[in-house]
């Protein structure tokens, strides 16, 4: 088996893990963003009362 | 006729989690005229749209003459006049009325009659685009009354109309009432509405805070209703 075959296997595995990791990070970022938005809004509504 | 002409039974309308209407319930008998009052964003338009079948209630139900609003024969009895005129600019007055008339089963003779009645017979075949504001509004009124509706739903009818159109609309509304049609109109112009109304409803943030007979105090003092039943805000 040639060199490339095994290198590309590693690429494949890295992509599989990498893509899912990227999605997980994106989820995390959105979580942070949403929490921030919610806090700001809650404070705004609080003030108006 | 026994049952109510319009019955709203616990109508809720959500936009996402926000309730635009909360548990609105009222009944209207045939021949009554309801003035729907309330601030901007109180839910007047939302309620009218649900009554007219343009929008579905999230919870609860609306019945028109005991039937579902989305039933075709129920909607054949409803006349709708919204914020905008609801006409096609590139078509002529006659073509506009013909299009809508075809949906309601109105004859060509009736259409000519209406064109004369709203004083547009002489320009009936030129496109609506060329009309003045007042002419467009008169045509819109004719469109709403074309099929002899038994229930009229008018959203802020007096706000965008000019004097001539208001006079025309008031005349038609009075005639419709005399004929036993039911009318619901939402409005800011309390004075004009009070002259017509037999019942008054006040919406506040989606809640029906008052529903009852029109009284003499209301006609005399436009702010009476808000002061008595409106929220402190």
């Amino acid at each position: 088996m040639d060199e490339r075959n095994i290198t590309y296997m590693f690429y494949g595995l890295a992509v599989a893990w990498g893509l899912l990791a990227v999605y997980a990070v994106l989820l995390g970022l959105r979580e942070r963003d949403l929490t921030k938005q919610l806090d700001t809004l809650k404070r705004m509504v609080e003030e108006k009362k | 006729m026994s049952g109510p002409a319009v019955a709203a039974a616990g109508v809720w309308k959500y936009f996402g989690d926000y309730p635009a209407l909360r548990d609105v319930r009222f009944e209207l008998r045939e021949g009554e005229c309801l003035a729907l009052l309330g601030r901007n964003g109180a839910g007047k338009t939302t309620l009218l749209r649900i009554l007219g079948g343009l929008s579905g209630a999230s919870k609860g139900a609306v019945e028109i003459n005991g039937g579902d609003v989305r039933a075709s024969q129920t909607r054949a009895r409803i006349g709708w006049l919204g914020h905008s005129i609801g006409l096609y600019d590139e078509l002529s007055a006659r073509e506009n009325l013909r299009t809508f008339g075809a949906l309601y089963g109105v004859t060509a003779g009736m259409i000519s009659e209406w064109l004369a009645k709203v004083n547009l017979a002489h320009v009936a075949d030129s496109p609506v685009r060329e009309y003045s504001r007042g002419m467009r509004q008169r045509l819109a009124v004719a469109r709403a009354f074309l099929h002899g509706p038994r229930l009229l739903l008018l959203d802020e009818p007096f706000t965008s109309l000019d004097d001539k159109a208001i006079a025309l609309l008031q005349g038609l509304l009075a005639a419709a009432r005399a004929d036993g049609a039911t009318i619901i109109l939402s409005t800011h112009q309390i004075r004009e509405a009070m002259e017509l109304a037999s019942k008054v409803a006040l919406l506040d943030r989606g809640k029906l805070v008052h529903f009852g007979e029109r009284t003499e105090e209301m006609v005399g003092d436009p702010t009476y209703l808000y002061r008595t039943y409106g929220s402190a805000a």
Partner: protein
Amino acid sequence: MRTKVILALGAVALPLLLRNLYAIMFLVPDEMEQGPIYRIFYYHLPAFFTAALCYLTALVSSILYLLKKDQKYDAIAVSATETGLAFAAVNLITGMIWGRISWGIWWAWDPRLTWALICWLVYFGYLMLRSAIDDPTERAKNSAVLSVFASASVAITWKAIEWWRTQHPGPVLSIRTGGVQKIDPIMENMIYVNTVALLFLAAIFILVRLRQEEVQREIDALRRYAHAMN
């Protein structure tokens, strides 16, 4: 409660994923003809199964939304679609890498590849539509309808490819070939085990996404409320 479930799932999924990675790299035997590259299949195939299951979940919950008009189903639909897209991306790109070695090209206009790409585009459109609609109820309704449309189209496209010539490897798993053993049982088991691991991961993603959807609803409601106060 939800957080605990997510953590518990994570506690199962992560060791399983790591164990599978170890097993895939060092324990399973090499395939005769293809060499190490075939190990990509242990992600390629399970990712496809997971994505397909996600799409199916999205379809079912979209239909449920249209029937019941409950925002909960809309949240499930969007969570499942998004997670499905992530796994479909894994499926597509690992497939491309495998194709580079086995076919010599990154992208063959092979029907099955094409189908997977179309599928991706269709559901990506679903997410685009969602992001463009402001009112949550309208968004839920319109996107549920689009989801039904998309699934119908995807199903027909799937049928269409069977009439086209394909150079994609046919079914190898014994459940698809009617019990005929086409690959080593060790390999087949590995595929199943990794499918389970990825399904756990997908479940975590969906649950997290679901919670975010709930927070989003709260934000939307608060925003409306703030506007109404003016």
